[in-house]
């Protein structure tokens, strides 16, 4: 691959160790109906109902009927927490499997709307089974990042094992002792696509790289690609572009992460619904940053109990660059959760902070003393904006750091001058919303929000335009039809006249 540009690894304290801890059965489940990609708006259970583990609680009617599945049995509470289903009085069966029964059979039979009706083992059947087991959601469209429709298949799959955003579950932790399952998962994916090529992106220097290479050596359909271990260079879209698979929308490309491959393998091998996640618990405010094995809906306050070094914290669902903050009492792990990052809130002011030499700051540039000798200890960054909002000083850091090579500062200026056409010309569509531009900006400009706004505006404009075109086309069609009808009538009249003449002639 070509020399990658941009990207940056933030030196923030609290990197989770590889140790993975199993969490006990929770006192309740708090299942979010909304996650980054999914809206489980079609609720399938009643208030007060007793459900068993594996029950489908709700469905996303828009995204291929993706399912929200109860990891444990218990009593359903609707409306207790807005946009969540709460399950109380948990019965302690093993996650995803109803007590005293054969989980696989149950879950299979419970397949939900898509149904795993006829189990003929064809790829389409397997895809449906994955949907029913809640494991299909890990497969996204590499180009859009949105969940893939299970109706189709792909020629290429990008498997990215590079998860460097601080902090989400790392591939090392996920694959620890599970490399065999991972490879089996790759084989299953290969079958699923009826012979598609699988591109596995592995971070340069990843501990498992050699072993993995040996395990897939006999598979000609599986190619390993080494990518510089720098956030976000392992992003599927960047891998896709680097491999030159980006052209031509006629070739669908799937993207999936390490956890997804393991989930698919787990679901297909055991037949049990996929309700467990391994998540990272990291950040400067976590006393012992580790990985956790927990079920979807596990209450966040119970996860954090006795694990923080301060009460005054911000809990971020996902990494600090792209995640969203959550209130621990009112939320549980959502279906897409890969990690929780906990930051101390800023409460203290420091005298003449900007003028300090900065012996232990980790900064993208080199204006702090520690910047001159990189590789120092990570910094306990908190939620400070670290400055005030100012006009862009054209320092160029955002351009430097952007992994897709667009010009965030220029887009920012055009956006705020309402020149949407120019924004579009600047290729804001290439942005992968990694958040680094906002992170490095010394003027503290919310560039990531700008990029998102710009993309939304352009999308809306295109939709409006399409609608207009469609309307115009319909009208045009109508007009043509009317004309044709008229012409046909004319033709009829003319033929009749001709016939009459002929008759008269005869």
């Amino acid at each position, binding site marked *: 691959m070509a020399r990658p540009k941009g990207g940056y690894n933030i030196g923030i304290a609290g990197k989770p160790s590889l140790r993975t801890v199993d969490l006990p059965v929770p006192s309740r489940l708090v299942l979010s109906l909304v996650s980054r990609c999914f809206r489980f708006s079609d609720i399938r259970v009643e208030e007060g109902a007793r459900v068993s583990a594996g029950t489908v609680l709700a469905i996303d009617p828009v995204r291929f009927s993706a399912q929200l599945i109860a990891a444990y049995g218990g009593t359903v509470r609707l409306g207790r927490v807005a946009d969540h289903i709460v399950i109380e009085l948990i019965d302690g069966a093993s996650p995803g499997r109803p007590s005293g029964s054969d989980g696989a059979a149950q879950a299979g039979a419970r397949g939900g709307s898509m149904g795993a009706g006829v189990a003929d083992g064809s790829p389409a059947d397997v895809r449906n089974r994955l949907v029913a087991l809640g494991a299909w959601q890990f497969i996204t469209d590499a180009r859009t990042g949105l969940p893939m429709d299970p109706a189709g298949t792909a020629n290429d799959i990008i498997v990215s094992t590079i998860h460097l955003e601080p902090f989400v579950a790392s591939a090392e932790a996920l694959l620890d002792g599970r490399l065999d399952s991972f490879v089996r998962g790759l084989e299953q994916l290969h079958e699923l696509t009826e012979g598609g090529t699988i591109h596995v992106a592995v971070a340069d220097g990843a501990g498992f790289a050699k072993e993995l290479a040996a395990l897939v050596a006999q598979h000609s359909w599986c190619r390993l690609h080494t990518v510089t271990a720098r956030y976000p260079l392992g992003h599927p879209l960047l891998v896709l572009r680097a491999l030159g698979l980006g052209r031509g929308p006629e070739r669908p490309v799937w993207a999936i992460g390490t956890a997804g491959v393991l989930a698919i393998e787990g679901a297909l091998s055991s037949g049990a619904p996929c309700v467990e996640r391994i998540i990272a618990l990291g950040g400067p405010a976590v006393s012992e940053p580790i990985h956790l094995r927990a079920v979807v809906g596990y209450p966040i306050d119970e996860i954090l109990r006795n694990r923080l070094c301060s009460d005054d914290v911000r809990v971020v669902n996902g990494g*600090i660059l792209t995640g969203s903050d959550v209130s621990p009492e009112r939320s549980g792990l959502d279906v897409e959760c890969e990690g929780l990052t906990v930051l101390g809130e800023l409460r203290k002011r420091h005298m003449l902070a900007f003028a300090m030499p900065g012996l232990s700051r980790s900064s993208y*540039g080199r204006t702090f003393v520690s910047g001159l000798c990189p590789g120092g200890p990570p910094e306990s960054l908190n939620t*400070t904006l670290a400055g005030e909002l100012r006009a862009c000083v054209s320092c160029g850091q955002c351009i430097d750091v952007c992994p897709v090579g667009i010009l965030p500062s220029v887009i920012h200026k055009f956006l705020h001058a309402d020149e949407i056409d120019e924004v579009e010309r600047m290729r804001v569509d290439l942005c992968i919303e990694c958040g680094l531009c906002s992170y490095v900006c010394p003027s503290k400009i919310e560039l990531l929000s700008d990029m998102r706004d710009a993309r939304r505006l352009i999308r809306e404009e295109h939709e409006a335009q399409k609608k207009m075109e469609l309307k115009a086309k319909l009208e045009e069609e109508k007009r043509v039809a009317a004309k044709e009808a008229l012409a046909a009538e004319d033709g009829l009249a003319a033929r009749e006249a001709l016939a009459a003449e002929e008759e008269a002639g005869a």
Partner: protein
Amino acid sequence: MKLILTLLDKTRPLFQKGGRFTALKPIYDAADVFLFSPLARTSRAPHVRDPLDTKRYMSTVIIAVAPCLLAAVHFFGLRVLAMVLVSYAAGGAVEVLLAVFKKDEISEGFLVTGILFPLILPPGLPLWMVALGSAFGVLVGKELFGGTGRNLFNPALIGRVFLALSYPKAMSSGWIEPGQGLVGRLLEYATDAVTMATPLAAAKSGTWAALPDLFFGNVTGSVGETSALAVLMGGAFLLIIGIANWRTVAAMLGTFVIVTAGIYGGDPHAIIWHLLSGGLLFGAFFMATDPVSSPIMNSAKWVYGAIIGIATALIRNFTGYVEGVMFAILLGNIFAPVLDELFVTAHVRRLREEG
């Protein structure tokens, strides 16, 4: 420290909406966040931000010019400090008044302009002219364009051009003979300004200053630019910490050397002499690298630097002006938006081809 913080907290309501000094809020805010890091927190992703802010960004330039300032005090007397103070006071007053008037925040950009401006003036210039030029630079050079970040030209250069056009005599005769020896003029306020030729002017009539004098700064000239050594020290600092873009500097000095070599038939003495004399180095490290008035793309900075370097060499040798750096940089500033348009367009076209 606690005391100041309490004081700030106690007086805050006076400046808030409805307080007695609401109009002065920008001043209060500036002092407040200058003394103590602000409490502003992130409100959305990314939830943490890089520790670098504009204050630190701008103050690195002040650190970088410190050697020049010290050298200037050594050669031209304590008057230099008075010039810096006057420049800060006058320009700062304009900045503050405008901020109060526009109910805007006071931007840190002035920290840089305020100190660079006196350094490019003749050391014997009357203080009121320093004040006028500084105020003009901020008002016209920056605020008329919409404030820091939107100015087309380097505000300090605008101030200097204004003075050069309005008071040509004072601007070409306000020289001070550099102090000699170890102490120099460190203990003097100033001596009378004299009408004497700067090395570049003298060279036109055939007298070439000695290279060591040029290198250490023992010559007449503008306040901050006479000592090549001091400029190089500050410039190296800016390059190392990455605030000045090395491409601009390299392109400007590189092309200057090439053109000068062409003019003098490759005579190494003439090349080095020209490199060290006048405001060339100061302009290359401190003025041309101003990010706001430079083009954005790194590739464009090469061309930008080259335009300035070539223009300087040509102006110096083929026009009536003895010093060409100032006009060359302003010329570069004019070209910057054009370069941006060209290079940005080419860049996004390449993106389209990529994917």
